[in-house]
């Protein structure tokens, strides 16, 4: 399951990444393996999405969310 599959309000824990380049950026922003992520909201047009991670809010596109594999 990836982060993209979660619905608003659902929570998941990061396991690993499918895209190395994206993972470097995501990890710098606090999306690390073991970190808990909650979907905060989805943009009115369905993309991008906003998540709560390590105490703040981050937005990312659906494609980027699909590179995050959850436990």
């Amino acid at each position: 399951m990836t982060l993209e599959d979660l619905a608003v309000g659902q929570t998941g824990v990061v396991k690993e990444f499918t895209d190395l380049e994206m993972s470097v950026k995501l990890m710098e922003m606090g999306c690390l393996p073991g970190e808990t992520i909650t979907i905060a909201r989805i943009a009115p047009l369905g993309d991008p999405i906003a998540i709560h991670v390590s105490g703040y809010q981050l937005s990312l596109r659906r494609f980027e969310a699909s590179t995050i594999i959850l436990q």
Partner: protein
Amino acid sequence: MKADIRVALVGNPNTGKSTLFNALTGLNQKIGNFPGVTVDKKTGICQLTDGRRAEIIDLPGTYSLYPKSKDESIVFSVLAEKGSELTPDLIIIILDATNLKRNLLLYTQVADLKIPVIIALNMMDMADKANISIDIDLLSRRLGVPVVPIAARQEKGIDELKQAINHANKIALQVDSIDVRTLAPALIADIEAETQTDNPYFALQLAHQHEHLKFLTTEQSNRIEELEKKHDFHSQKAQASETIARYNYINDVLYDTVQTPQTAHEESLSNKIDHILTHRVFGFIIFIGVLLFIFQSIFAWSEYPMSLIEDGFVWAEGILRGVLPEGPLADLLIDGVVAGLSGVLVFIPQIAILFAFISILEDTGYMSRVTFMMDKIMRKVGLNGKSVVPLIGGFACAVPSIMSTRTIENWKDRMITIMVTPLVACSARLPVYTLLIALVVPNKNVWWIFNLQGLALTGMYVLSLVSAVIVAFVMKFVLKARERGYFIMELPVYRMPRWRNVIFSMYERSKTFVLQAGKVIIAVSIILWVLSSYGPGNRFEKIEQTYSQPQYTKTMTPDSLARVISTEKLENSYAGVLGHVIEPVIKPIGFDWKIGIALITSFAAREVFVGTMATIYSVEGDADKIDSVQEKMRRAKNPETGQPVFTLAVAFSLMMFYAFAMQCASTVAVVYRETKNWRWPAAQFAYMTVLAYGMAFLVYHLLR
């Protein structure tokens, strides 16, 4: 005056870095450029408590020393270059106390460069509110650096921070964070030997970034590249393991120094606001409302100061005319320089107002929500969520709008936005449109409520936006992306705007515009003045002689005589000659040489068209009186055919030309200023001219 100590200000975006910079330096700021790049360099002088002076360099906000944009790449290169005029003696790193974990990542990277560091722990007030308790002394001991709690917005802790700068060490005492050498032991050792450094993290960063570092020689860079190959170094893999190692260290540091409650209060309030502002229906309605308000305000609020500036220049021209002896020098000064200056300064109200709004939108956190909502639509046409504001601002004026594209981090998205913004119908086109529409479109209603003239004008506005979107879509395929597009963006907590920052941003942007774009505009104005007030050979003298004969002086009033003379002079000036020269080129789109003159004189600013038309048709009285210009233009006949010059086809062809042509020196100047390369404004000028000619040709032949 030289400063006693040089301090670099480093931190994540949205941590209050510019607020702290303003608090430390006050109005003692200077904006320049980092050598060799287009990134703005903000420096300022801070008066320390012991009487010494510190030079503060505000480095672009970044989440890590690994850059994701051109702005961010400056940070490492300034911190790492030894012995340059920017090399800092001390780094102040500003950390957001409510989000210490992510903020500490940048700290650990910066600390490992082994330059003395002070931590300014900002937003302590917010952390208190959110019941986050931080053991500052313990944190300071753990990291081995001074930690100063501050609240930059409330200007709390600023004096303590200045004292900490006073007492800063000359040598770096911070504790090592991670064991950098284990990341690439052999490579780091080799690069250390190659560049004669004993800092392993500096060596590792060179391996990652050597291609972009200006302070390395080509040989050094090539040598590092060879070493990378020899040791089979994979930059992204190394970055990933470094980041994980750093976060492990940070978790250890934070384990007993920071206690965070499960949900923070401020964030839930911010969430409630988000529910409304990014709602699938209300979100867009509110956004459109905000845009309309900004658009209206730029028009309405700038009207009075703009007319004040114009009146001021008219008054100054009057004074100068009285003081200076008549002659070419006075004319050059008044009609060339002063008129050009007035053309520059008149934009200040619009620039200041647009930037006040942009600064408020960014400060409050609303701008990132706009990006969040609009990203999907804008991405389809090759733009970015952040392109919305420049495009809408373009309805008022392309100049401040192009300056505002700096908020777009992605290079390609920003360039496309800059390239298409001048297509949006700006306020300078309005007088041209109203004049021509009133000339050929009947003032009557269709389907009861729609006024034909109003429909035509609305059509021009809609056309401008549609053409901008189409051109953007085409450029999406033409331009090559420099970086992979991504949209990993922080959505900061909603905040009240800081009025001081708003004022600073208004002042800064206006000043930059006047200093940078002003030079070009004045130069172009002077050239155009020369073209329209001098003629080849003795043509001007002949005109004077002809009209000094009694048959004219006896029968005409001095006023109408002067008008006829100025018409004749304009027709015989270099601009007039040029009008004749370009006539074969513009004939296919329905223009004669008189319109050609107007095209030339309005080359620097579209609104000049109306004034030139007034001169060409010797309009009596005030040239501002559109009615009389219109009447003369209506009566204008083609001498060969005897038909009216301004037919429906010609008028719409002209409007198309003004809709697409880059008739604005200020925009050309500002595009150069923002891209730092003449190729961009040149390409833009070329494509817009081609488009203008093509559209005018099409419309002229369709309507004829």
